[in-house]
């Protein structure tokens, strides 16, 4: 962690992340209004003392909607990534540890799945599952799993030939013990780094699905959906698309920067920027 803080990229990332996670945890309590409340007389307004970030086409307070949308947006990213990384890592570790035929079959299947452009793959899955937050989360997780499996497998493979593993094998330790005590703890670094960066992808894909009408559904305060709903009005009141758009960018950037700093901290060879 100290390495991360010594890196300016990491500091900025950490600051952004703190803001975003703070909003996700406390946003709903900080919001000045009910995010669904119509202020019919104050539709499509810019920022004012009454509405700090302006209002949307129904006269709903944008500030309150952003704050209420923060938890769902952030937890969508975390949830989808955790799911994808979890499933992917299990598959990857199994392939890496088992080796041989099982390994090559798993890798062939993964190659097949990776042969589809990511968003197209997600889009087809969501079409199949039907729109909605849970479905979108599952779709992103499924899309992430093959890539994560590859990374997990390669980090297991790189650890497998290290001396301490060799030593454990020579000591006659059981296979499960070796995997649990020696291989996993040492392979987990790259997985965490990759996962942090993936969170920002997950948030962006989630928002994109919301934008396309395939993710969160109205009257949800999910940020991508907010942009989609207000698009018709973007020239009348730019705030109602700029505010959620910038919120998405800040969140994704927070995870991105933090992930990069983590990677540098884990991998001293790259740590020279």
């Amino acid at each position, binding site marked *: 962690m100290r390495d991360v803080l010594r890196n300016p990229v990491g500091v900025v990332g950490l600051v952004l992340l703190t803001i975003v996670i703070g909003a996700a945890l406390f946003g709903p309590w900080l919001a000045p209004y009910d995010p*669904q*409340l*119509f202020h*019919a007389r104050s*539709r499509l307004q810019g920022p004012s003392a009454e509405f700090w970030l302006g209002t949307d*086409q*129904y*006269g709903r307070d944008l500030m309150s909607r952003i704050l209420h949308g923060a938890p769902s947006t952030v937890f969508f990213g975390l949830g989808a990534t955790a799911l994808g990384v979890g499933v992917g890592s299990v598959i990857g570790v199994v392939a890496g540890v088992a080796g041989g035929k099982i390994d090559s079959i798993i890798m062939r299947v993964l190659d097949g799945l990776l042969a589809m452009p990511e968003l197209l793959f997600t889009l087809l899955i969501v079409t199949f599952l*039907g*729109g909605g937050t849970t479905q979108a989360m599952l779709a992103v997780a499924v899309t992430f799993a093959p890539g994560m499996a590859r990374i997990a497998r390669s980090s297991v493979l790189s650890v497998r030939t290290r001396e301490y593993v060799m030593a454990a094998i020579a000591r006659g330790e059981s296979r499960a013990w070796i995997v649990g005590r020696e291989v996993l703890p040492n392979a987990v670094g790259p997985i965490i780094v990759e996962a942090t960066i993936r969170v920002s992808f997950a948030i962006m894909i989630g928002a994109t699905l919301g934008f396309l*009408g395939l993710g969160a*559904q*109205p*009257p949800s305060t999910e940020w991508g959906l907010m942009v989609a709903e207000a698009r*018709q*009005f973007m*020239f*009348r009141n730019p705030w109602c698309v700029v505010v959620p758009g910038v919120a998405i960018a800040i969140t994704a950037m927070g995870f991105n920067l933090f992930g990069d700093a983590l990677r540098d901290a884990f991998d001293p060879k790259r740590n020279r920027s």
Partner: protein
Amino acid sequence: MTDFTLKRRHVLMGLGALGALTTLGLPGGAAAQTPKTGGTLRISHSTRIATLNVLSLSGPAEYPCIDMIYSGLTRIGLDSKVQPDLATHWDASDDAKEFVFHLREGVKFHDGTPFTAEDVVATYTAILNPDVPAAARSVLTMIEKVEALDPLKVKFTLKTPFADLPTSTAHANARIISKAALAAPLTELDTKANGTGPFKLEVYDSARMVRLVKNPDYYQPGKPYLDAVEMMLFPDLAAESANFLSGATDVMLTVQQAEFARIAAAAGIEAKRVASGRYVCVVMRQDQKPWDDVRVRKALALSTDRDLLVEVILEGLGRPAYDSIVAPEIAYATEKPVVPYDPEAARKLLAEAGYPDGIKATLVASDRPGIRVQTAIALKQSAAAGGFDLTIETMPHDTYLANVWMKGGFYIGYWGMQPTIDATYRLLLTSDASYQDTEWKNAEFDALIEEGRATVDPAKRAEIYAAAQAKELEDVPYIVPFFEDVLTASSTKTEGWQIAPISRYFYVEDVWLDKA
């Protein structure tokens, strides 16, 4: 049955062919000027013209095309009344079970073949054939037999009396197709068109443009004024309005509510609001709780802030409606009492009905068109004060059509205007309605509609239909929060551009361009 012993009366003789034509389509201001001929009218639209199959199409930009290419026996005027088209006049038997349509002489299809009674018989036989996907069938099911008496006379024999048959024959999808075209594979109708209308199909490119050219043999002498009409597809609304405002197109078929004010304010543009009977309705299935109780339905009606909905969803471009699906423009419509926004009264009604803590319900809305979801969102807010805790479930249109439409207990419907009160009620509310989705079945109401069909005398019909509308208001089978205006715009150089409130008839043959 070739022998007519029944006493016959001419239902519409007063509006004889010539009399009707001169009053059609020309708004007051334009009538003073002499129309100029020539020029190409460029109409922009933002939904695809995916097919020209007149039997089954239903796209907003597809209707103007078939209105230009084809003619029907009858047509609905800008005043929402039935007008002659290929039939110059018609006779009905007193029991409204037999109709004879007298066809216009000397009309030719675009390929030069003459139009005869045989084409009418072939078209209606196709429409009534269950193997053919035909949108007009649902309003013509009462037809038992269609026969040609001579080349210019067609007789319709009905199973049940139906005084409004000439309105049903005006259905946009009941345009006359040539006998030869109907003998060919029906899929050819998708891309080829041989009609009797004022314009002929020249280019059909569903991805970009449909170009129609003047039919010099059109039956109205001197019309159409235009040499050609181009239907130009703009898949993007912003691009569409930018091109229209810059003069690259002459007519914007549909203007979005959000843009109407800006376009109306632009110089050289005439934006039009046509009060229409298009409406959103809240479907409440009455064979299940809690909607089986009329007090619950009335409570929801009282919890609907109609003025707010008109303001927020329609940008004020519509009128509040008070839970009748019959728009004021439709003949025999009665004045509907205002339903106030009164959440207090709604809570009381709910308590009386046994729901002192209010009602939780899931309201389903398809994602297309957007107005459904918008209505759901606004209704959720408005109804909360009245004790309704609504959860909104939005879904893709295909899932909605397959799983919820006609099946669900509580969802948002969206319907276009129908030409008659009979068609309006038979679409949704009679027990045998085409799309009976409320399970509101009322024998007295059914009997009234049946009686209205068989009655020819207008005064009597007015009485009957007033009673039917009173029944509807009494039971609140649907919440109808508003009627949406039809919005269109044309350049000031475009004279005579009109849309009928029912938005399926356009009378483009009357349009002309005032260009040097």
